């Protein structure tokens, strides 16, 4: 069952009088519990597609349905609320708040949810234990290594038990060992927690860890790629 359905998606930006088409007539299905990677050259529209699926931006045309909700029709404030509950983000440069501790960074998205302090604490500790940082609760980002920061980022992404996890170049700023750890964690999220993961990457090694790789080129999924997708769906 597809948890992410992208249909006839167009996204264009204006630069003065010039219109730049970034995504054109794009269709994509991602199944529940699937781990896919998006690859393609720079400017192919990977991050734009990721932003649209994550509800950070609205399409010019077409629809995006996540679960049973059409997010392409939502307003900005509706999207903000929806994101809190349904999307976990993993960024290339971690984007942790430097003034907060690891615990507080992970707790951040939960502050927006109606939960008791005890529930919140339990989930934060679980998430940090899962990424192996149960002993770094009071450390600030500046006191952690890049790999550890990314693990905090992953803990923050899953702490609200989201429907999908989106990751934008999660290994882009990491050394190979840390990158491997981060990818193992993402695999673990899929296999153990059944999370649906959509990852943008330039790293073929990271892409190999995904179940499926979707290649984008000039804002489209090439015809042969589409056929492969269909075949995958039939299988």
């Amino acid at each position, binding site marked *: 069952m597809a948890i992410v359905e992208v249909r006839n998606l167009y996204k264009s930006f204006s630069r003065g009088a010039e219109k730049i088409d970034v995504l054109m007539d794009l269709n994509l299905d991602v199944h529940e519990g699937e781990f896919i990677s998006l690859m393609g050259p720079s400017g192919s529209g990977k991050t734009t597609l990721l932003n649209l699926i994550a509800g950070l931006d609205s399409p010019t045309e077409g629809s995006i349905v996540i679960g049973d909700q059409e997010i392409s029709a939502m307003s900005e404030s509706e999207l903000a609320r929806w994101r809190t509950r349904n999307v976990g983000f993993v960024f290339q440069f971690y984007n942790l*708040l430097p003034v907060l501790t690891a615990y507080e960074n992970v707790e951040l998205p939960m502050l927006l949810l109606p939960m008791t302090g005890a529930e919140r604490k339990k989930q934060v500790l679980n998430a940090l234990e899962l990424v192996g940082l149960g002993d770094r609760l009071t450390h600030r980002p500046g006191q952690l290594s890049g790999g550890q920061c990314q693990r905090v980022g992953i803990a923050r992404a899953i702490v609200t038990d989201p429907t999908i996890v989106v990751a934008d170049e999660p290994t882009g700023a990491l050394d190979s060992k840390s990158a491997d750890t981060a990818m193992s964690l993402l695999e673990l999220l899929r296999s153990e927690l059944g999370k649906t993961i959509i990852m943008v990457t330039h790293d073929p090694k990271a892409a190999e860890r995904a179940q499926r790789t979707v290649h984008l080129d000039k804002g489209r999924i090439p015809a042969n790629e589409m056929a492969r997708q269909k075949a995958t769906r039939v299988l």
Partner: protein
Amino acid sequence: MFPKAGGHRPPALPLQGDDVPPLSISHSLGIRMNPQMMPGMSVAPDFSLFTMAIYMAFGLMAIVLGATLLGTLTLPLFFATTFALEGVLLLFQRSGFLAIRVALMMFRSLRRNILRTSLTYVALFVFTFVLTLIYSIVAFLQSVQEEKQQDVKVIMTEKFQVPSQMPPRYTGDLIAVMKKELPLESQPKNFEDDVMTWGFVGGSLDPVNKTLENSLFMFAMEPHSLLTMMDDLGQKDMPGADYEKFQTAVQQLQQDKRNILVGKDKLATMGKSVGEEVKIYSMNYKDIVLECKIVGTFPDGRYNGSAVMRLDYLIAKLDDYKVQKGSVHPLAERCTNLVWVRLPNKQAYEQLAAIVNEPGKFNSPAVKMETASAGIGSFLDAYKDILFAVKYILMPSLAVIMALVVSITMTIAIRERRTEMAVLKVLGFPPRSVFWMIFGEGVLIGFLSGLICTWFVFGVVQVLFPGGIKFPIAFFGTFKLDWRILWLGPLLGAVAAALGTFMPAWNGCKVKASEVFSQVA
């Protein structure tokens, strides 16, 4: 009522040799004569608007430098306060309220770039300091002009001539008029205590080489009035021991008409001490030489540069002149410069003013009654343009500069933190939370700088000058910092910071997450 400071522009004074050296309006109202302007000395330099502007610019610069130093010194206090407030918030951290977490992030952001936060704090401290100081001065000037309703001090001055030069009999005439024509309830409670005459006598210890050091300006007056009519010399104005000492000095003054009191600073500049006899060569009363004995001094404070002699001695010397020279001294009938009266209420003043104005009374020269506050108001009239500029141009300009400083700082801070704001929005934080976090940060610095500035300065002034700052500006009394600055300062800081932070905060909360991440990617 004994002023000391110069600063007012006295009219040009004629040189020695004039029969009637007039006293300036500032003298009439009690400003101490600037010896450089005295007859017999060098030609008075022109105190132009340009000169005044230069003085003001240097004064403002000194204030700004002082405030900057003070602001820097109070930086630890500022950071300690933020730590303390953050500590309080931490107690409620586990409650999970979004507002508390946002506030905590706000406090921590202050320490993100300590140098920038410190500079913003110091800048706001300086502006709050300058603004509240100006406010205090303006409020002080307004308060001295406010009409009192009870125990009104009024002055008799010449109606058509400035400075007033009235005959000595006018004091007696005024008392007689009051006794005869004022209803009993409108009369001074005690004619002895509630009437005071002032004659101004400028003199030098050296008849030829007149310098700032050897010159002094004296008030010729009835000695007992020192205790009953003079500002800041009453029993309630000083510690008991000081008052007893001063009473003794006044008693000494009363014992011999040649006795004088001289302020401590003046004694020091003249190189004289209590007990010494001095010959004072009058500069405005030609050919009058006063042989005086210094019998005491004033309590420490605003009278340190002043001197008092007895009015009856001045009159006696003018009489001697007539005997010796065979003619009346040119100023003999013009030696009363001001007559002060304390009346029970404002109504009594109005009655007396009407009586004094009646034709046939006080004709040569004609006089008028005015309240002390009205007199001060007339004096300040000369400065009304400057005061207007201070109130309506300087103060708002400073407030705008203050807001701009905050705005620039916050804009820089937000530019650095665009990604963080985008992260918050990505995580689902509503724009208003992002707005309040930035806005609150600016307002917090503004509020704390205003609070620390005014409370610290007010506290220090209270400790150092418990009774107020006794610097004698003209006829003004003790200068006290207006207590309203205690709430005005923090409010001013917060409002200026709010104005300066609003737009940066608005721009910050409008950061588009996808654009930020596209740029990062």
